[in-house]
Each structure stands twice: as C-alpha cells, then as structure tokens.
C-alpha cells in the first residue's frame, strides 16, 4: 500500500490595470471552475478559480482591476492584503501574476513597480500584443525580461495562445520562496531613509507583532488621506505619535526636494522610463485606425446618442419578447411538475407545502432566468466589443445632474426589465458611493413584474377615453406610473449623494477600450456566471421566504365543519353533473363548482395568519383608501409584487388562476363589485391609483432584496432599501388617494 501524497496546491493572485483583459486571462486559465463570493466586511468581489499545472492543483484569485496599489479605503486594502498574505480568509499567494497591456506600458509598469516592491514572486503576462503590432509598436521582450528580473510572457487569452508558456512560468516562479533578486526601490535615497526610520519606530511601537511589510511602511508615508495610519495596530494606541513621526518625515522630504505624494509618481514613472528605454519603439505618427473612425460616429453627441437609443431599444425588445416563450416554458414546466405532484400525493399540508411553497418558490426564482440571461448576453457583447464604455461616456452628462456618473446608466436602464440584473450590472461602477446609490435606486425603475398590476387596475378602473382627442387615458396612466418611478429615483439618488454618500467624487476617468470582435467564449461565460450567481445566491433566500409566506397563508386551517360543508356542496354538484345529460348543463355545474372552490379558498385565506394580519393593519392602510383585503394582498405580495394579482383573485373569491383573459376580466368584475362593509364601492379611481403608486414605489420583491444583500454584502442595505421604499410607497399612495378623493368630491 502506497501512501497517497496529498496533491500540492498552489495559489496565484491576478492583478492588473482595468481593461487589460485580466478577466479574460482568468477565464482562460480557470475555465468554468470558478466561484464568486465576497470578502467579508467589504463590497469587494472575491473571485476564485482552479487550474491544473503539471498535475498539481492551483487556486487562482482574481483581484479588482486597479491603476495603483495605494489603499485609501477598506475596499482598496483588500488587494494589498491578499497579495501580502495578510487576510486570514485567503491563502497567501505563491505567485503574483501581473497582467500588463502592451499598448500602454508606462502606465501599466507603474502598477508593476508597486507589485515588485511587495517582494513576492511575480510573473508578468503581456496582453494585447496583436493590437500593439497593428499600431506599429515593437517590443524587445528579452531586454524587458532582463531589466524587470521576472518572467514576461506574451499571451492572447481569447485565442488561448501563450497559456502553456504562462503556466510553465508560474510553476517555475512558484517554487521560489522569495523573488530571485530583491527589487531595487525606485525611490530616491532620502525617501528610503525616512522609510527605514519609520520602520525602526514601528518596531519599538509594536512589540510582539511581526514587522509591517516594507511596502506598507512606504504607503504610510505616501498616503496623505491618513487611511493607513488608522489601519496600524500600535502599543497603547499611540496614534498621535505615529502621526507626528510621519508629518516630520514628510516635512524633511519636502525640504529635500521629494514632496509627498508627488515623489511616488516621479519615482515610479522614472523607473518605468528606465525599464522601457530602448525596449519599445513606436511609429512617429500615431496611425488613425478604423476604430478611431467608428468612434467619431459612435461618440457623436447627436448620431452617437441616436445609435445608442436604437441599440437599447433593440435590447429591450429582445429582453421582453424573446424571454416570453422561455418564461412560458418555465411556467408550464413548473405547473406540470405541480400537477404531477398533485396526482401522486394525498391532499394535505405536505402536498400543499411542496406545491405552493417549494415548487412555486423555485419557479419564482428560475422564471427570472431568461430575462437575466438575455440581458447579460447582449450586455456581454456590448462590453466585450468596447461599446459599453462609449455608452457610459455619452450618458455621463445626463447622469452628472443626479450626482452619478455615466456608468450608472446601463444598470438603471436594465432595471426596467428587472432590478436583479440591474443591481448585478452595477459591478462596473468602481466608485463605492456611486455604486451604492445606483443599487439603492435601481428597484424604483418600473420592472416588468409591475406590469400585471398596472394592466389589471388600469383595465378595470381607468376609463378607456381619449384625452385631447388622441391620447388614451389608459396609456397615459401607464406612462405616469413609469414616470413616478423615474422621478422618485432621481430625487432619491440626488438626496443620497447629498447625505449618506456625500464626499469628494474621485476623478471620473473611463477608459474607452479599442474596439474588437466580441469573443463568444467570454460573452457566454459572463452570461452564465451572472445567471448562476443569481440562482445560487438569491435562490436560497427567495426559497426560504416563499415557504414562510406559504405557511402564513396555509395556517390555521378552516374548522372541519366549514370545510365539510363546502365539500358536501361540491359533492352534491358533482352528483348532479353525473346525472346531467346536455353539455350546457355540465358547463353550468362546472362553473358553480369552480365558484364554490374559489369561495372555500377565499374563506381559508381570510382565516389564515396573513388574512388576520390584513385585518390588524387595516387602520394603517385606511388612509390609502384600502380595506383589509387589499392590505392582506399587499403583504402577501412581499416575495414578488406580481403575486398581488393572484392574491387579489383568491381574496375576492375568483380563484388564483386569473391570468387567462377570461380570469382577468372576472377579477376585474369582482373588483368593480367589491364593497366596503357599509355598502360603498371599495374601488374608486383614486383607490386604484393609490394601489398602483404603492406598487410602483414599494420594494415588494424578495429577489431584489436578496441580490442587494449579495452585492452589498450586508443585511443593512437591503433593509434600508425596503424601509425607505415602503415609506415612500405608503405616503405616495396616501397622497394620491387623498388628493384624488378631494378632486373627485
């Protein structure tokens, strides 16, 4: 018997500037084996993958794209801590893989110089060499390797060229505990002297603690925001002492002609220039590429905007129309499964739990998938070919007025289809404040799930008359509902940027990457990645809430005597049907049975915990013009707002299957006939409007809240979102009802 050796695992961390093709390299190395999560306590995405090198298992860690390793916040600290092995939740990387764009070596080498200073084994992967060649740039690779002192591997990840060489370089480098030669500091002598001085001071002030990595000591000196100072654990918390040391050091450096922080840019760009001198040759005249000519049209204020509107209209059309057959298919599949279970199981709580709780819950999750997949398929194409950055550039002027940037536009637009992909699409926004604001207002965009609510109530209560001869009042009401959401979102975004997310805006710089043909592999990969991350992360929460809501509607049961009375009547009718001879009579009896069953169901729902809750909250919803039935339907629609239509159907004794044209019209009739206890009609135009405004503004969608929880990595933000939207919805609905009633009177 041989002792099976545990296959050695190694870890590599990927770092690079934005738009260097880092995600493509990550995808090409790890294939489909990847996991997306979150670093605890921050909003930074933790993306890990696996690959095999010479039979050994490797873990890949993808770090956020960045121009510089200069942490000024908790989020920016993550990358530095991961690479230095300072995070307990992440293994210390054996190698750092730095992705470098061959077209912009000066700026990319700025980051490389920081990475090399971390003192970890490093490999450089050079991407977009084909584009550099097209532009007439030539590179002396052996010379660059020699100067940098680390392997430099040219790759074309989307064509899988150079990946083997890259893996070999990683495997060879990983065996070194330290880099082959300690990198020379790019900083001038006086700066290095001050760093050594602070190192010595810290050694005294941190007895028993491992010395702070030299890179972090440098950063302490360079970080004028003071963030890192608060990050250092000191004996007796002598923060003032450290601060005084640093200020004194900066003073001396300024006098020595090395002002902080400017000295860093001078030193690193100087270093980059010395690395590249004689390595890169460029044509004297930059060639005008076909991409430049395309850009002249696509970023034009008029033509570019028109093309953008057309592209978005096309995508929306696809999201709405292409998804319908798929969503119907999923609906039918879920319905079929429910029928199957109904057939094989005896009636009872367990069957109801499986059908109405579990199957309906899972169905409620996966029914969103077609829209998510289609939207991310198109966004993936636009992103990969380089158009999405142009769209953000075009929309920036508009979004600046709300305190946001052009990068928020696509996520908000996506939210008209569904807030879930919209919230997920905010990952492209680097600025945390902008991203949080966008996430928090995205659910205010009228998503497709609000449509059934609008359609039902508009068809039932808004008279089909034309205003000014040609504009239908019904259509105008629909547009008004969308406008309510957009205007509220604008106001909330503006308010959030003035209060909770106030602060200096970081410079808005967006790279407009060179156009290229989208890679099907990358596009499909992104689409599935986002789809699955929704199912896995949000699915569990949605599933759990669906079961809770089921229980609230199922318990307690009707007393046996009531149930028996209904059963008896139905049985009697069934006997009559057996005896009936003509088709017309059978049909009439079937209709009676359906009415009875709907009534029994309605009785049960009224008795349930949720029905009782509706009665308890009736005083609260009365100012909105609602009675307890509408209140209960609103509570029941917490998991998903479109459920309110089915719930209204149950509560008003029509049955839950109101989706067919006939059912909807039966529900409309039932709603029109509904009365208060004193005989006044329950639904008036102000009441209908109040319900619509409530659903336009409320956060009745557990899937969205689950995705916000996943993206912000906290329960606080989804709770805040739910709270503020519910408050807005409540007062919005009250305003509409009160004003409407006053006008009508």
């Amino acid at each position: 018997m041989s002792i099976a050796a545990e296959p050695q695992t190694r870890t590599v961390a990927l770092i690079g500037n934005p738009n260097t093709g880092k995600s493509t390299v990550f995808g090409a190395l790890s294939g489909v084996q990847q996991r997306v999560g979150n670093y605890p306590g921050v909003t930074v995405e933790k993306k890990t993958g696996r690959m095999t090198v010479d039979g050994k298992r490797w873990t890949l860690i993808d770090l956020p794209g960045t121009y510089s390793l200069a942490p000024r916040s908790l989020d920016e600290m993550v990358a530095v801590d991961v690479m230095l092995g300072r995070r307990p939740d992440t293994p210390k990387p054996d190698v750092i893989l730095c992705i470098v764009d061959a077209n912009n070596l000066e700026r990319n080498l700025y980051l490389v110089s920081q990475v090399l200073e971390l003192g970890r084994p490093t490999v450089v992967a050079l991407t977009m060499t084909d584009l550099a060649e097209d532009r007439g740039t030539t590179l002396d690779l052996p010379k660059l390797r020699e100067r940098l002192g680390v392997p430099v591997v040219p790759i074309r990840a989307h064509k899988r060229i150079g990946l083997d060489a890259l893996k070999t370089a990683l495997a060879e480098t990983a065996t070194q505990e330290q880099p082959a030669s300690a990198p020379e500091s790019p900083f001038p002598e006086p700066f290095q002297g001050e760093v050594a001085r602070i190192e010595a001071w810290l050694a005294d002030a941190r007895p028993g603690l491992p010395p702070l990595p030299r890179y972090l000591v440098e950063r302490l000196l360079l970080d004028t925001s003071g963030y890192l100072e608060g990050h250092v654990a000191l004996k007796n918390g002598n923060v003032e002492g450290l601060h005084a040391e640093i200020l004194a050091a900066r003073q001396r450096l300024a006098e020595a002609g090395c002002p902080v922080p400017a000295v860093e840019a001078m030193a690193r760009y100087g270093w980059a220039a010395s690395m590249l001198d004689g390595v890169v040759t460029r044509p004297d005249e930059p060639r005008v590429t076909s991409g430049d000519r395309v850009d002249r049209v696509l970023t034009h204020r008029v033509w570019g905007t028109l093309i953008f509107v057309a592209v978005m209209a096309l995508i929306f059309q696809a999201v709405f129309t292409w998804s319908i057959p798929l969503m119907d298919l999923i609906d039918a599949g879920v319905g079929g499964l429910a029928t199957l279970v109904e057939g094989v199981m005896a009636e009872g709580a367990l069957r109801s739990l499986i059908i109405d709780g579990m199957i309906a819950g899972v169905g409620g999750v996966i029914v969103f998938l077609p829209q998510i997949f289609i939207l991310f398929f198109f966004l993936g194409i636009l992103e990969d070919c380089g158009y999405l950055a142009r769209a953000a550039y075009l929309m920036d002027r508009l979004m600046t007025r709300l305190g946001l940037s052009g990068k928020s536009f696509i996520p908000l637009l996506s939210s008209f289809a569904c807030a879930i992909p919209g919230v997920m699409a905010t990952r492209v926004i680097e600025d945390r404040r902008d991203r949080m604001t966008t996430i928090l207002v995205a659910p205010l965009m009228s998503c497709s799930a609000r449509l059934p609510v609008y359609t039902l109530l508009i068809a039932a209560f808004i008279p089909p008359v034309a205003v000014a001869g040609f504009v239908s009042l019904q259509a105008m009401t629909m547009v008004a509902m969308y406008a309510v959401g957009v205007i509220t979102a604008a106001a909330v975004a503006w308010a959030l940027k003035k209060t909770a997310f106030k602060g200096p805006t970081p410079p808005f710089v967006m790279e407009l990457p060179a156009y290229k043909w989208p890679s099907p592999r990358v596009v499909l990969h992104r689409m599935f990645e986002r789809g699955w991350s929704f199912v896995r992360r949000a699915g569990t929460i949605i599933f759990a809430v669906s079961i809770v809501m089921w229980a609230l509607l199922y318990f307690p049961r009707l007393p046996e005597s009531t149930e028996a009375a209904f059963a008896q009547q139905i049985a009697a009718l069934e006997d009559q049907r057996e005896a009936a001879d003509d088709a017309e009579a059978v049909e009439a009896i079937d209709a009676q049975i359906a009415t009875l069953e709907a009534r029994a169901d309605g009785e049960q729902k009224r008795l349930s915990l949720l029905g009782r809750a509706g009665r308890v909250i009736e005083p609260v919803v009365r100012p909105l013009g609602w009675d307890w039935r509408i209140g209960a339907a609103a509570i029941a629609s917490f998991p998903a707002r479109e459920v309110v239509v089915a719930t209204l159907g149950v509560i008003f004794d029509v049955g839950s299957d109101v989706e067919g044209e006939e059912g909807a019209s039966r529900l409309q009739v039932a709603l029109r006939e509904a009365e208060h206890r004193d005989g006044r009609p329950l639904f008036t135009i102000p009441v209908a409007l109040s319900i619509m405004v409530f659903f336009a503004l409320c956060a009745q969608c557990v899937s969205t809240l689950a995705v916000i929880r996943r993206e912000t990595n906290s329960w606080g933000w989804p709770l805040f979102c739910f709270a503020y939207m519910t408050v807005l919805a409540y007062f919005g609905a009250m305003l509409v009802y009160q004003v409407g009633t006053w006008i009508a009177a």
Partner: protein
Amino acid sequence: MSSVAELPPSVAELIPLTLLRPGQSGTVDQVLGTGDLVHRLREMGLRRGAMIEMIRPGSPCMIRLDGHTLGIRSTELSGILVRPA
C-alpha cells in the same frame, strides 16, 4: 482661441488641457489641484511629460493618452496645463 495661437510661443506656452482643439495635441506640463486628486490623475497616466491629444472637447471630453482613449470630466482636467504641440 485663435488669438492665443497667434501669440509668440513664449507667452502661449501653457494652456489648460480643456482648451485644446479637436485633433490638437500637447505635452502635460503642470498638474495642479488637491493632493489626492492630482495623485490619482498621475496614477492614471496624466503626468508631466505625457503626450495628450484632444479628440472631442466638452464634458466629459475624449482625449488620447499614451495610445489609449479616455473619457474624463472637464472639471477634473481644469488644473492640467499643457504645452500645445
């Protein structure tokens, strides 16, 4: 801006980046502003000596820097003085 172009080079040497005309290029000379903003701009490559070409003025404007096209808001660029080529 034609008046600036007609001035002798010693006077017309430095202009704010935002005043470059479409297609005109220049070399970054000074980056002025608060410490953190300037530092971030430098990290992104807007450093002394960098070659910049204005593609589309306005806010945000489109510039070419080191062979890359960037969209930047003009408010951020007002402190960047360039020497027109």
